[in-house]
């Protein structure tokens, strides 16, 4: 518990002190390895579809840039960690637009089926792929109900140190774990959406009753996509 507090203090301090003292990029490995990841937090995202604009893909572009996801002009095999989904109700024709990405399930089917344990869920709720043990069997892609994962179909160059990727492995949204661990308290998509003035994506700690994300969920409610599957997703949507 004391370690958890240390972690929390560290995160709270990071906003003020961290921004002053650390240059960008120094954050990359700023997570103190002595401070364990804790289940006292559960990181999550809240998407308000009323604020999300159909013609905007700032979140997608920010994610692609943050992790160096290239457009190779082969849409069927190019990786997409986040995509804009248009949903139309045939009755009446109401259309909504929303960002779709790994939902960071609490009971993730991808983790259940992975033969080597390469797919795993950190106790703070972030679901990741260990690129050292993924054998590229793609069973997780078969199992994910949200089509959140991409297989790397070709050789990659110019990798970023905080986003290791490689041919033959599967990957998906990391909830910008490198930013979270550096105490930045946001993700590339949320940041970009904010910058564009839409503020449709909010990042935060679902376990902290005082966090903005928890307050908004408490006040207005939020839905899981395919709640019927009982996965308890970490990404929630409003005004679906």
């Amino acid at each position: 518990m004391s370690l958890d507090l240390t972690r929390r203090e560290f995160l709270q301090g990071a906003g003020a002190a961290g921004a002053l003292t650390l240059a960008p990029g120094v954050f990359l490995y700023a997570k103190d390895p002595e401070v364990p990841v804790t289940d006292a937090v559960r990181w999550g995202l809240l998407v308000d579809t009323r604020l999300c604009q159909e013609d905007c893909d700032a979140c997608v572009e920010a994610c692609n840039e943050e992790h160096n996801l290239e457009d190779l002009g082969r849409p069927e095999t190019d990786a997409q960690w986040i995509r804009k989904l248009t949903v139309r109700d045939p009755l009446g024709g109401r259309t909504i637009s929303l960002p779709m990405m790994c939902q960071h399930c609490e009971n993730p089917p991808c983790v259940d089926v992975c033969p080597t344990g390469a797919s795993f869920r950190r106790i703070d709720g972030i679901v990741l792929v260990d690129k050292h043990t993924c054998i590229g069997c793609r069973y997780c892609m078969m199992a994910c109900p949200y089509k959140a994962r991409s297989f790397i179909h070709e050789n990659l160059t110019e990798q970023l140190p905080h986003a290791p990727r490689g041919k033959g492995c599967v990957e998906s949204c990391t909830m910008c774990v490198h930013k979270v661990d550096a105490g930045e308290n946001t993700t590339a998509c949320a940041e970009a959406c904010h910058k564009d003035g839409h503020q449709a994506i909010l990042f935060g700690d679902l376990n902290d009753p005082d966090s903005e994300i928890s307050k908004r969920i408490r006040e207005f409610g939020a839905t899981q996509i395919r709640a019927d599957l009982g996965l308890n997703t970490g990404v929630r949507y409003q005004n679906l």
Partner: protein
Amino acid sequence: MSIASVRYATLDAGRSYWGLLAVLAGMTLVGLAGFLHLEHEGHWITGMNNQVVWGIPHVFAVFLIVAASGALNVASIASVFGQVTYKPLARLSGLLAAGLLIGGLAILVLDLGRPDRLIVAMTYYNFKSIFAWNIFLYTGLLAVIALYMFVLFQPAFARWTRAAGILALLWRLVLTTGTGAIFGFLVARQGYDAAIMAPLFIIMSFSFGTAVFMLVLTAAGRGSGRVLGDALLFRLKNLLAIFVSAVLYFVLAYHITNLYATEHHGYEAFILNFESLYSKLFWIGQVGFGSLVPLALFYAPRTRTCRISTHVGAGLVILGGLIQMYVIIIGGQAYPLVLFPGMEESSSFYDGVIASYVPSIWEFLLGFTGVAIGLIVVVAGLGALGILPEDLSDPKPAS
């Protein structure tokens, strides 16, 4: 032919024997060259993509693995259920099962994104994963077959034959259930979320395995100058006919249960409405040529006692089985995931549309490599060990 008097002999390693092995080795080498190219370039050169992640290699691999389990039918009937007629063929049954299994597993490994990490796959286990369990079940079956063959070959252990046969029978039933469960556990996919997947796979294994066994038995007999007796062949044919009917029945039950649930109507229409490619493959390939035509050949008065019709029928069952695998594996992925039931979805990632999949030569090469590797095991086994009885003709009536 009484059991005690059965004499086994290796195949004569003549010119045609070595020629066959050379052809199979050549096929394997071509396949491996294709694999190296695929490995170097990455999977973008195949037809597989982020929508259809398992392709032709998996169609072949799952078919071979399922057929391997079914190839043990003859061994089970002989050793567990004590059918004397089949006893002389139990060794071939075991060898063929091992060959098919090795071929299927080879494809699965060669298709991995990181086949170089095979050692990881064998040292890191997630015991919640049915896939990890299957790795045990597959390698375990090879060990069980080895044990069973050992018992068959050692007269001193003859009294253990039944026990080894029971072990092999139980093991393969669990293995096929596990293989079906790979798909049955995918609850979010419209076409797979069905408990009937496991028994369907078991009965499919009986059918495919028996068909392969009949053709291999005939070919081995031919190649070695042994004449296969009519009675034996038609007995196998009658067995196969029952299995083919049973598969049809299970497929019918699967679709009827699915039609009962409105949420599955979209997928059912996709497979049954005769518009999509998968629907045509289902009706023409799987149901027509893969089931009804063989059944007609097996049962019609004019063809039921014709050896050629019997072999054509068995060949069609194999073809229909591959098509059935294609419909299940590729069709199940091509049909879009439903994120918002009742809504229309669209995105840059092919949400809401039928995914396209055009198989590539590289994938077929992997599939053929698996078949070739499996046949090499069988042919080498026939040449090295006394697998085939010297006499395959029908027993003369006792005089």
